[in-house]
């Protein structure tokens, strides 16, 4: 997988198929991006599991924190890692010990570890890096268009009005899949320089 720019169909397939998401580094502080994303994805119907050893015994929006991935009592489809790039590898290594394996490992905006990605992909796990699932869900459903964001999708179909707790259709026509976006090129140049 080219991790500089993902085809929309790749992201769309992941968000349409996963049901449970373990969020590593989920924060109960309501100004942290992980809190935003956790709340949004829970409202869109995903089975969310907060993973953070510092908050065991507490709950995040009614879901109990667990200390680590191996403490989760059910299969997890996707692991969403809210940690800096330097803390990714141990999480991926732990994920690879799970049975069954997760289908997807997702690293948040700003997080990227190509070696960890390669390791996960070698056992058939799909990897997304330096993206936010909340933003991608909002973009592919065009809900994010309320913020003037370029969803890079088109549709001539009448959409249902979004309400709380409702899953939105992500199946709009994509505009180029993002491969040519200037922002992706800039991110790629930054990765190559570092």
């Amino acid at each position, binding site marked *: 997988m080219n991790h500089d720019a993902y085809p929309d169909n790749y992201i769309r397939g992941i968000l349409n198929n996963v049901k449970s998401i373990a969020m590593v580094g989920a924060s109960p502080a309501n100004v942290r991006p992980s809190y935003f994303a956790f709340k949004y994805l829970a409202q869109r119907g995903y089975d969310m599991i907060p993973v953070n050893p510092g908050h065991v015994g507490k709950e995040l929006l009614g879901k109990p924190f667990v200390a680590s991935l191996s403490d989760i009592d059910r299969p997890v489809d996707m692991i969403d890692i809210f940690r800096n790039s330097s803390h990714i590898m141990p999480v991926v290594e732990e994920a690879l010990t799970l049975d069954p394996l997760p289908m997807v490992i997702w690293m948040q905006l700003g997080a990227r570890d190509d070696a960890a990605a390669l390791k996960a992909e070698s056992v058939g796990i799909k990897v997304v890096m330096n993206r936010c699932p909340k933003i991608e869900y909002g973009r592919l459903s065009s809900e994010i268009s309320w913020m003037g964001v*370029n969803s890079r999708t088109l549709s001539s179909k009448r959409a249902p009005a979004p309400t709380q707790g409702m899953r939105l259709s992500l199946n709009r026509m994509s505009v180029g899949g993002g491969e040519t976006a*200037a*922002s992706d090129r800039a991110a790629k140049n930054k990765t190559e320089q570092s």
Partner: protein
Amino acid sequence: MSDRLPGFSTLAVHAGAQPDPTTGARATPIYQTTSFVFNDADHAASLFGLQAFGNIYTRIGNPTNAVLEERVAALEGGTAALAVASGHAAQVVVLQQLLQPGDEFIAARKLYGGSINQFTHAFKSFGWNVVWADPDDIASFERAVTPRTKAIFIESIANPAGSITDIEAISTVARKAGVPLIVDNTLASPYLIRPIDHGADIVVHSLTKFLGGHGNSIGGIIVDAGTFDWSTGGKYPMLSEPRPEYHGIRLQETFGNFAFAIACRVLGLRDLGPALSPFNAFMILTGIETLPLRMQKHCDNAKAVAEFLAGHPAVAAVNYAGLASDKYNQLARKYAPKGAGAVFTFSLKGGYDAGVSLVSKLQLFSHLANVGDTRSLVIHPASTTHSQLDDAAKIKSGAGPDVVRLSIGIEDKEDLIADLEQALGT
């Protein structure tokens, strides 16, 4: 669902718009409302805290305006956009995110006279110091860079003479200086030039001109290219530092490659207040649907008129980058191969008096202070749009006393030429 790239004309009609969820209306409805009802207290809190996507109050965002924003972002190849009340408002909102009092920005000397005025006087009172550079001398931008420089500002096709700016060369200077390049793309529109493809980090427009295109609505827009890393060195605290207005959110960390557009909305538009009326957004959106058709006709007509003027005995000189003999023709071929725009200047052998006489005799051309209308327009910049400048600055910015500026409309070119011919006297 295939990942293919629709053409520019398809985006001009469709991007951002979808049949209305409630009524099925196919044209974008005008959501002429100040405010939007919350589902419950938690929904309200989520929206105010920037945690959920949605509408609160039309000063911060409006569904009609959002369609316009996404459409222009798509046409420019940006990640997001923010519509505001005018092109001038766009410039204030952009620079408010980038400059603290005492900071500097470098601007090309050839700009719309109103921008020169805004930068020189209004922004000075905010402590934002403009440093001028010559777009025909790239080294003058390099020499202007200091540790306080926070941005570089240019026009793609520059007022008033329609000169073409070497965007790539100036973007190289900006990258080296570690500052964003802001390009005012008003006179080109994304149909002719997409500055982001040439290294711009932020694009601004007066929507009033070719994008709206019909001379009926004032508006402005800011497009975020998503290319600039705001987090380095604490140089851009509005984006990289925790914002007290939002309980400590860091915008770049939270919104990634469209953080600048969000900053313009939640720190600029929300607090400075230059919101675009949804009605104006609707008028401008309708205009954009025909942008490709209009822009090509504007350019084709402009070239025919410029060629006619260049061959007329009463004309001293024509400044139109679309003419093979023009100083900017090579840059025009590179940056704007479909046409060199429709705003240009010419000078008359009879000087100032001949210019005044010409303007008074024209029957089809309207004498007014705008460009980018369906109608052809004429003005004498030295006594109007550029009148605040002293004589030396007028000449430097291409608005000397003998110069007449035209904005060519989409009428039949034969009629425009006939009107000029009778007014010039043969």
